[in-house]
């Protein structure tokens, strides 16, 4: 099966609908293909894509002079298609994709808040990211808005957000957050419940909006890589890699194989650490502290290994544009290998306990059920998708280097409940250990970085990486001066947050924490 053999069929269907599209320059966002179309066809292309069963993978706008260039990503069989249109700032209106792709809701509202693009037929016109930070009619991502911001005052607290209410006898509202009891990020959850049963959950996020997209403007490549590493701290490797990949593709830079292998080792290290922490934390949320302590210990040992080998517990800033910061010495292998073997042995003891424990099973099985259809409609990836029958992994299906030369196993389970999401994590840990062993055994020789070309002007690129949460899509455009003009990292959390709102249906209020933990979406990666 060759790449993009489905594209001609899609184009034919568009032609049937009298939609005129132009093939973009093949090199523009390679390896993705671009289609350029008129703004009035924006809704139709999404409808046809939805009918064809393509996954919707993100939406971002890029303000250039007096226009906004709007991009939407679609995925099918591991191939990425980027639809591009232009809308004038004087009349920024587009058709909405939300009727066909429910997960488009928040990204469209984000675009509406940040760039002032209005979406027709959007069922939900409420503000999303902006809270009350900027006055009406001011859009921070537009070029006339200063990077330093325009208000020295503190943002007033967000109030009067019109949550949807359910009326009826016995229905009551439970507001939770944005400040929570644990050391976690801020986000507000509004429950409508009858007795203990949840009828509806609505999340209100945006409390950790850091202006990532705006402060990226004007950075050099190294600065952008550092910023990308802080989009979501627990996925720092994946986000940095995605941003670097986008920049390197824009620059047409070839990365030495040794650097790519080291990047993959880092990414797998990050995956293992996060999955270990999550398995323990999920068990802790149902009062099974034993697992929390054991998996917490394993994670801590793992992070200390990271510290001694890579110089940072969370592996921040090891990946830089053009390669990686340092070479891996022979010494590192001697530390890593026994560590992997030890973890493997411990998991052989611990995972069966989690799997067989009847009182855990009682809590986790059938809790937080996300159906396969719902998962597909929302386009969730990573462990969320893999636990609900969505067999997709960027490493295997899209195949970026160095994974394109490896046999990447990816679990795909069907049950869709909390227990299944634990199982996917457990399997991914084992697969990651195998991948790392393989990568370390055949570590290519050669340099670990190449120098960055003098100036990369007016080029753009996308990066696609399977983070531990799922697919990350990063877009970077360089301006004329060779500095970053636009950066948009799309974290998988944009899709797992809406999934949480759906999978909680019919569960009881005290089961929310464990459902939430099993989803473990990033607040920071989503709020940007």
């Amino acid at each position, binding site marked *: 099966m060759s790449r993009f053999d489905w594209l001609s069929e899609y184009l034919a269907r568009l032609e049937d609908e009298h939609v005129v599209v132009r093939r973009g320059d093949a090199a523009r966002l390679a390896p993705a293909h671009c289609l350029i179309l008129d703004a009035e066809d924006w809704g139709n292309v999404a409808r046809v894509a939805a009918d064809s069963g393509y996954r919707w993978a993100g939406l971002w706008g890029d303000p250039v002079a007096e226009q906004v260039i709007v991009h939407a990503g679609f995925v099918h069989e591991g191939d990425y298609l980027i639809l591009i249109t232009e809308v004038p700032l004087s009349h920024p209106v587009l058709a909405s994709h939300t009727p066909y792709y429910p997960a488009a809701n928040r990204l469209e509202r984000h675009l509406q808040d940040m760039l002032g693009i209005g979406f027709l037929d959007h069922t939900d016109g409420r503000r999303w990211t902006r809270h009350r930070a900027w006055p009406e009619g001011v859009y921070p991502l537009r070029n006339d808005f200063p990077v330093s911001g325009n208000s020295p005052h503190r943002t007033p607290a967000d109030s009067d957000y019109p949550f949807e209410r359910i009326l009826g006898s016995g229905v009551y509202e439970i507001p939770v957050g944005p400040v929570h009891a644990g050391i976690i990020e801020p986000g507000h959850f509004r429950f409508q419940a009858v007795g203990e049963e949840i009828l509806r959950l609505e999340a209100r996020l945006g409390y950790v909006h850091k202006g990532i997209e705006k402060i990226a403007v004007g950075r050099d490549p190294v600065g952008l890589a550092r910023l990308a590493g802080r989009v979501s701290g627990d996925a720092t490797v994946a986000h940095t890699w995605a941003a670097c990949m986008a920049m390197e593709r824009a620059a047409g830079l070839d990365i030495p194989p040794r650097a790519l292998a080291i990047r993959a080792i880092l990414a797998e290290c990050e995956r293992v650490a996060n999955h270990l922490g999550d398995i323990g934390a999920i068990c802790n949320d149902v*009062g099974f*502290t034993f697992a929390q*302590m054991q998996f917490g210990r394993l994670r801590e040992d793992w992070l200390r290994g990271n510290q001694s080998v890579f110089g940072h517990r969370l592996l921040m800033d090891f990946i830089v544009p053009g390669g990686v910061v340092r070479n891996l010495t022979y010494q590192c292998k001697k530390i890593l290998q026994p560590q992997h073997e030890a973890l493997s042995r411990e998991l052989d003891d611990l995972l069966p306990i989690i799997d067989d424990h009847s009182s*855990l099973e*009682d809590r986790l099985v059938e809790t937080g059920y996300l159906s396969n259809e719902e998962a597909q409609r929302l386009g969730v990836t990573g462990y969320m998708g893999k636990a609900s029958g969505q067999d997709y992994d960027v490493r295997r299906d899209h195949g970026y280097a160095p994974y394109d030369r490896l046999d990447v196993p990816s679990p795909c389970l069907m049950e869709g409940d909390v227990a299944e999401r634990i199982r996917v994590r457990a399997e991914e840990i084992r697969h990651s250990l195998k991948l790392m062993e393989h990568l370390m055994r055949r570590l290519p020789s050669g340099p670990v970085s190449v120098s960055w070309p003098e100036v990369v002007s007016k080029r753009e690129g996308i990066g696609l990486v399977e983070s531990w949460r799922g697919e990350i899509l990063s877009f970077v455009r360089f301006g004329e001066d060779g500095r970053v003009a636009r950066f948009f990292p799309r974290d998988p959390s944009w899709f797992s947050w809406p999934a949480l709102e759906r999978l909680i249906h019919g569960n009881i209020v005290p089961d929310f924490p464990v459902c939430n933990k099993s989803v473990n979406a990033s607040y920071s990666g989503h709020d940007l």
Partner: protein
Amino acid sequence: MNPVGWLLALVQALLYIALAPLLAGWVRKVKARLQNRRGASLWQPYQDLYKLFAKEARMAHTASILFRAAPYIVFVATWLAAAAVPLLTSDLATAAIADVIVIAGLLALARFFLALAGMDVGTAFGGMGASREMFVSALAEPAMLMAVFTLAMTAHSTNLSAVVDYQLAGANLLRPSYVFALAGLLLVAIAETGRIPVDNPTTHLELTMIHEAMILEYSGRHLALMEWAAQLKLLLYGVLIANVFFPWGIARDVGAGALGLALVVLLGKLMLLGVVLAVSETVLAKMRLFRAPAFLNLALLLALLGLLSYVILEVGA
């Protein structure tokens, strides 16, 4: 009544207050060891209480006088209930009021004010905790009374001192009715003191809380009293189980030697019970809230079986 008797009753009541944090600390310590942790010192609960008493008590703007008064009422009611359970000796001046009905009543009073205080400030969590507490206790209370009535039937008295005396006087303790009642009371004790698998005393997740949700808004000395009352309740159930079902070691006269021995034996029994609790909390995950009725129905059933087996097997035997 002689003054020594009253003095002893007072000492015993004070001993309850003094020992309650120690039991809590012991259970935490054993749990930590079972999880391969070193754990905090046994005296940590005392230090926590000391810290809380030294802190300022903050109050929500919406709090009424009830919110301020509740910690004192809850603490005193729980303390009085505890003081009625024979600790070292059954031969006390207060023995006359050591009645299970009184104890159940005092505990219900404490719970009533605890739930009211939970709802008083009007936060969602407080109300949620209060409703869950009532839901659990409505099922736990009858089971507890039923279990204790099994004892009362053998001793022909609902007075705990009389029950203990009756047993020490040579009653056969290996009766089927006692085994059932003990099992029932153990389950009730777990539910009533908010332990895993019914409630999780160490959780930070408000949405899953029962007891902790009601005292979320408390701080400073108020929180200290609430915490202390919860520790007292744990000790009360521990002593109830230790002394009524396994009465050996209780001093039958009030000599210093006998009382000393009684204290040592009691501590031993409580340590053992603490270990049992810690082990069960380590190997079990918390139940789904809606499984709590099944859990407490089992307790009720066991207590009822105890009662029945007494009537069928032991009356007239």
